[in-house]
């Protein structure tokens, strides 16, 4: 299990490749990557605030829960904070499991918890000014599945 909270960019391809290497009893690896969207080309940057200490604890707790619940052989979580430009990768999770259903569900569970229960807050800066991103009801609702 590997959980990292950092302001620096990470190399998704290298992380994913390393995570998927060397498994002999895990038949399935799933990765998820979140990217800063800029649908209408007006976003200058996103700034992600976090709660140092609690963030790491929350991510580690969620990763441990996912690992036990879905019998994951390995889990990786990387989440950035600070300023990110459109197209930059915000975060990634990766899960390894013997079979695909657990690998997929483990990654989805991690994402659903991370969206609504890990202490990060996003602020978007456009030419029109800055605004905090509001939490979505659908993200809160997604937790009902688990």
């Amino acid at each position: 299990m590997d959980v990292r909270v950092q302001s620096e960019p990470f190399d998704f391809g290298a992380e994913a490749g390393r995570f998927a290497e060397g498994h002999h009893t895990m038949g399935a690896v799933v990765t998820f990557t979140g990217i800063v969207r800029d649908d209408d080309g007006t976003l200058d940057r996103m700034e992600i605030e976090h709660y140092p200490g609690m963030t790491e604890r929350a991510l580690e707790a969620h990763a441990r829960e996912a690992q036990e619940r879905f019998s994951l052989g390995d889990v990786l979580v990387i989440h950035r904070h600070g300023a990110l430009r459109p197209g930059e990768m915000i975060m990634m999770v990766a899960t390894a499991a013997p079979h695909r259903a657990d690998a997929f569900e483990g990654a989805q569970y991690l994402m659903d918890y991370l969206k609504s229960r890990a202490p990060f807050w996003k602020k978007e800066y456009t030419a029109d000014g800055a605004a905090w991103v509001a939490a979505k009801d659908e993200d809160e609702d997604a937790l009902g599945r688990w």
Partner: protein
Amino acid sequence: MQILYFAWVRERIGEARETVETEATTVTELIEELRARDPRYAAAFADLSALRVALDQDLSDFDAPLDGVREVAFFPPMTGG
């Protein structure tokens, strides 16, 4: 007791953290004390349904006791991922 504020709660109050002396026994009582202190706090705590609280870095309820708690954090619903 350390109190931390994040995101727009931090912006409304104008500080990221402060140390307070309080007799409050629950989060709700602490919020009442803060609200009475200054309009900035009243603005930040106007709508509790838009707020979340963590006690010593664990998400908690507003009626949770403050017994032994060293760090209280107030923030809006989280938007990670």
